[in-house]
């Protein structure tokens, strides 16, 4: 089960979850992902080796995709 989550005031919110064989859940996840991008969030896909990758399209093969806010120099 893959998850799309957003870091927010509640700690985090699960926006969608999907599996490889469930097209409807994938479509819902893609839609939720686009909505977040339109609101200015950035997407980070966590890879199996512990690295993260900036993504502009929802990688359906990723286990975890996190929507985060932009960072800035303090």
């Amino acid at each position: 089960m893959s998850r799309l989550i957003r870091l927010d005031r509640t700690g985090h919110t699960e926006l969608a979850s999907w599996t490889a064989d469930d097209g409807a859940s994938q479509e819902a996840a893609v839609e939720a992902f686009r909505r977040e991008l339109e609101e200015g969030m950035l997407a980070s896909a966590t890879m199996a080796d512990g690295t993260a990758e900036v993504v502009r399209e929802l990688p359906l093969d990723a286990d975890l995709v996190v929507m985060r806010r932009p960072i800035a120099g303090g």
Partner: protein
Amino acid sequence: MEAGVLAEAAAMPWRRRASDQSLRREGRTWTLWSVGVVVTFGLPAALLIWIEPLAAPVSAIFLGHGLAVLHLQARRGARGVKPIGAATDGPERTALGLLGDLMDHGSRDLLALTGLALQPGRLGAWLVGQEGAILVRPGGHRVHCFCVRVGEAADLPPGDRVAHLLLALREDEEGFATVANRNFSGAAWRLRWELPARARPALGRARAAADA
């Protein structure tokens, strides 16, 4: 946008991208500056004692000013990073849970103990806090302190702030160092003095990781 480049760094084309070389250069500049402070305050103090040994207390005050400048700079670096405290309520616990999931077992324990997240990288070993990060350079002797935070973070629990920075760092380490503002670079022992006692073991672990 170039693949693998931090979006925030790509939005700042006027800023030269940080690299191993640029950090080395910055480190040298900070060392020169520190030597300059010591010479500026130390030389007249020594001269004064040479001219009039009875003026030693005045020399000591002068020299103390110089040491205070160096001390304050390291303190600024240490205070910028802001370790997270113990989780108290629901959102904080939820945020810490996710942050823990993003880290390996050893780093998770260190986070619980010190409030800082350890992330090894190509430029060295990073310690990430709520509003900044410390980079321990390979060899473990020099540190760079960065001020960097989530743009609109007022409503975010501390664990989420660290998770934001950690993800950005993992996405593009050099981009992260480009976006962040520098507030100190110097010997690791200088920073250690200024860190809260709870956070010091994290610096030790990061030094060991950077030296490995």
